[in-house]
């Protein structure tokens, strides 16, 4: 009796399980994104703010690059040139001190407000007065809170003049104005959202210039409007019908937060996203083999390097620095670990930048390295630690280098950790060896030349924490050359000067530059006219259709 009852119960139970399985298997339309919407899988966890005066992260640059306009932009077909965006024309005074921009007629913000030279001037003013991380790109031209309204001003509704403090190379000034920090905000709209602030010794102004609102708000005039940014979830853009240029083809672009390469690949294969932006070499290969998918790539400004802290007596020896450069198997790393996502590059100006130098003199040569170590009085090598972010391909490359360094007796202990944690340690100069990456702050050779040579105060409390400072290195000769290049008006001559600096840097420096990043993306074949730009702020989505 009991047995039958229980069997009945068990049968009911299995029926329930079967039913729920059936439910899951019920007919389901093939997943596809809406026709008028582009969906990108993207790891944008670096975004901290969408305010152009404050945003300084790669992903934020991509979003503001598509939603804000600038006076001038990089010509993405030839990044050594620039072209007008809001500006119809511009002229530079003979003394190289005053730049005059004429705006195109009839420009409008997404809000419908007209764009005037006053908006441009006010955008400069708020950047300088807020003085957030990227502000130095403008303040390096001598702008301060006290003089900015005089030095960056509207002379009439369509004319904006910008006065710099020294006769810099015009290419340098104009390149800096293509940086996201110079994006133009809608003064009238932002003023409706300013919050009062209490003036202090650090911050003299009684309002926040709309900064707290603009962190997630939007006041631009680009091809797209920012509808919403939810940290680590989604960024939603909508077409700006008031855009003065060629209108965007799609109504909406959604960036979905996806951290993992494998998850992006899965979603791409299943049609849940149109573009996967963070693919590992393995997933990229799988995408390339899939008939429904395609891939594209573009060299980016980011370079990966290893640096030796000069506080460590062994690492301060020039022969040891040289030895390190011969103890990396560049070829193997290029063929495997960074295949498709990077290219071996041993100098600090990325390919595509004015003054870039295509010379890769170093190869793995253990015998030569041993010789150098013996000369340094370290024939049996030494022990050392290396700080590495625990993400790929960084850890893989670090392990490969650990192995080749071991062949010459240098025992490396790798200390993995989170990016922000590594950075804290790096900026406190507490590392031995740091492995990481660096992208130019703005698209001009001075950005990298400065950080790889300038160290005007080598004390721990220096206010200018460049990369050479972080590694306790000084190179007064190169520093002088880099400063001189700033004032060379002839762009070709200026480029040659940076090449010369890099040649000297290759000979002697505690930096082992490994490769330049290639950005890759996989996409579904129905996506048309998708192209990656040379930097993140020109990964444009407006030409895309599907």
């Amino acid at each position: 009796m009991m047995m039958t009852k229980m069997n009945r119960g068990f049968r009911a139970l299995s029926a329930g399980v079967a039913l729920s399985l059936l439910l899951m298997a019920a007919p389901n339309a093939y997943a596809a994104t809406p026709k008028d919407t582009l969906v990108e899988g993207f790891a944008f966890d670096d975004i901290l703010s969408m305010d152009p005066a404050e945003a300084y992260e790669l992903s934020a640059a991509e979003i503001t690059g598509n939603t804000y306009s600038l006076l001038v932009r990089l010509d993405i077909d030839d990044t050594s040139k620039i072209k007008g965006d809001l500006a119809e024309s511009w002229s530079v005074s003979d003394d190289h001190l005053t730049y005059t921009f004429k705006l195109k007629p009839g420009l409008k913000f997404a809000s419908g407000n007209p764009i005037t030279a006053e908006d441009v001037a006010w955008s400069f003013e708020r950047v300088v007065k807020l003085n957030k991380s990227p502000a130095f790109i403008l303040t390096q031209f001598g702008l301060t809170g006290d003089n900015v309204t005089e030095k960056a001003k509207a002379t009439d509704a369509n004319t904006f003049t910008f006065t710099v403090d020294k006769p810099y190379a015009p290419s340098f000034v104009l390149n800096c104005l293509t940086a996201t920090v110079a994006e133009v905000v809608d003064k009238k709209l932002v003023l409706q959202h300013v919050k009062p602030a209490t003036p202090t010794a650090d911050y003299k102004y009684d309002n926040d210039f709309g900064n707290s609102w603009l962190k997630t708000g939007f006041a631009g005039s680009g091809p797209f409007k920012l509808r919403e940014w939810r940290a680590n979830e989604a960024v939603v853009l909508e077409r700006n019908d008031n855009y003065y240029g060629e209108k965007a083809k799609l109504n909406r672009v959604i960036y979905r937060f996806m951290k993992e390469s494998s998850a992006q690949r899965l979603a791409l294969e299943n049609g849940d996203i149109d573009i996967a932006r963070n693919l590992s070499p393995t997933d990229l290969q799988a995408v390339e083999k899939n008939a429904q998918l395609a891939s594209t790539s573009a060299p980016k400004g980011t370079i990966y390097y290893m640096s030796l802290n000069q506080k460590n007596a062994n690492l301060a020896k020039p022969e040891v620095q040289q030895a390190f450069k011969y103890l990396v198997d560049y070829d193997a790393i290029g063929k495997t670990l960074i295949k498709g996502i990077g290219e071996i590059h041993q100098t600090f100006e990325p390919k595509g930048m004015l003054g870039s130098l295509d010379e890769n003199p170093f190869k793995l040569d253990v015998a030569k390295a041993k010789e150098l170590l013996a000369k340094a009085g370290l024939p049996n090598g030494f022990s050392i630690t290396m700080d590495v972010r625990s993400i790929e391909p960084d850890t893989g490359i670090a392990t490969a280098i650990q192995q080749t360094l071991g062949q010459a007796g240098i025992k490396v202990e790798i200390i993995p950790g989170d990016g922000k944690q590594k950075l804290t340690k790096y900026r406190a100069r507490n590392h031995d060896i740091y492995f990481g990456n660096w992208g130019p702050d703005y698209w001009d050779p001075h950005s990298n030349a400065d950080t790889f040579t300038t160290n005007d105060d080598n004390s721990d409390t220096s206010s200018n924490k460049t990369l050479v400072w972080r590694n306790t290195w000084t190179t007064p000769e190169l520093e002088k050359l880099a400063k001189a290049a700033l004032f060379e008006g002839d762009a070709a001559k200026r480029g040659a000067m940076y090449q010369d600096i890099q040649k000297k840097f290759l000979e002697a420096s505690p930096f082992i530059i490994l490769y330049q990043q290639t950005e890759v993306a996989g996409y579904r074949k129905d996506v048309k006219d998708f192209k990656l730009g040379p930097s993140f702020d020109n990964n444009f989505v407006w030409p895309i259709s599907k």
Partner: protein
Amino acid sequence: MQVRPKKGRAAPFFMGLLRFLVVAVTTYLGLLAVTFFIGRVIPIDPALAIAGDHAPQQILERLRREMHLDEPLYLQFYYYLVSALSGDFGTSVLTTNPVMDDIRRVFPATMELATVGTIIGAIFGVPFGVLAAVRRNSFIDQIVRVIGLVGYSVPVFWLAMVSLVIFYAKLNWVAYPGRIDIAYEYTFTPITGFFLLDSALQGQWDVFWDVFRHIILPASLLGYFSLAYISRMTRSFMLNELGQEYIVAARAKGLSETRVIWGHALRSAAVPLITVIALSYAGLLEGSVLTEIVFSWPGIGFYITSSLRNADMNAVLGGTIVVGTVFIGINLISDLLYRTLDPRTRRK
């Protein structure tokens, strides 16, 4: 953290409540202190996290002053305590919203997931436990035990990924990780924050189906883990009941086996079972972090971990405290329910 009177000892209702409150307050302070100090010990500079990699030194110093980072640790804790106790958890660096607003948005997502998970766990776990108890040491009992053992020992993220590969990538039975498809995300307006409920209330059955296809896999997974716990506890409660004299008496009266087991024994076992299910619910609420990450579920676990990764300590602390509050709250409710439903806990 479960407070229960010792067996056989009289514990007047309000005394129990009082003791509970004392424990709750102490737990709270402990929670605040531990999360605060862990937040300060991790080698990430919170000012650097806000300012970003390239910020000049004077900006970092300004931020440090604003965040009281230049003051002694005990003072920082004091500032933190004062604002936390007044319900102000500060602003999230990452989302730039007040932390409480963020939590109000993400918490329903976690609750919905945990609720569906617990329902699945209970629907399957209770009958499994009953069957295992009734047919003790039989083949069914062994199977239930193995299922439970696997549920206890397999890492949740591994199972989550394997199930994603099978049910999403290969079979395409369920939807991509996330809560709702983008096709609906901007057309559907939630009311309560529970998408299943909201879409049903508004009669938007296509949205309901989409939400269902999103929630079913992560919820089943969580349900499986609570099933393991619920079935094991049910089994032992049932074994205990089945050995009681009233069961023998019921059988002697000639009641059908079904009524004896499901009507009498399970009914008595139901009281401690409520506590078990409630605790398992609380466990899912706080323990679904890994599931949320694998399934990109925009809930509180996902929120806390991404905040932690970005050194967004206000958000981490606020989130932790909310989870702690819920945990303590559910404990209190299940404890009170237990006392109300089972007179034995009140009588000598």
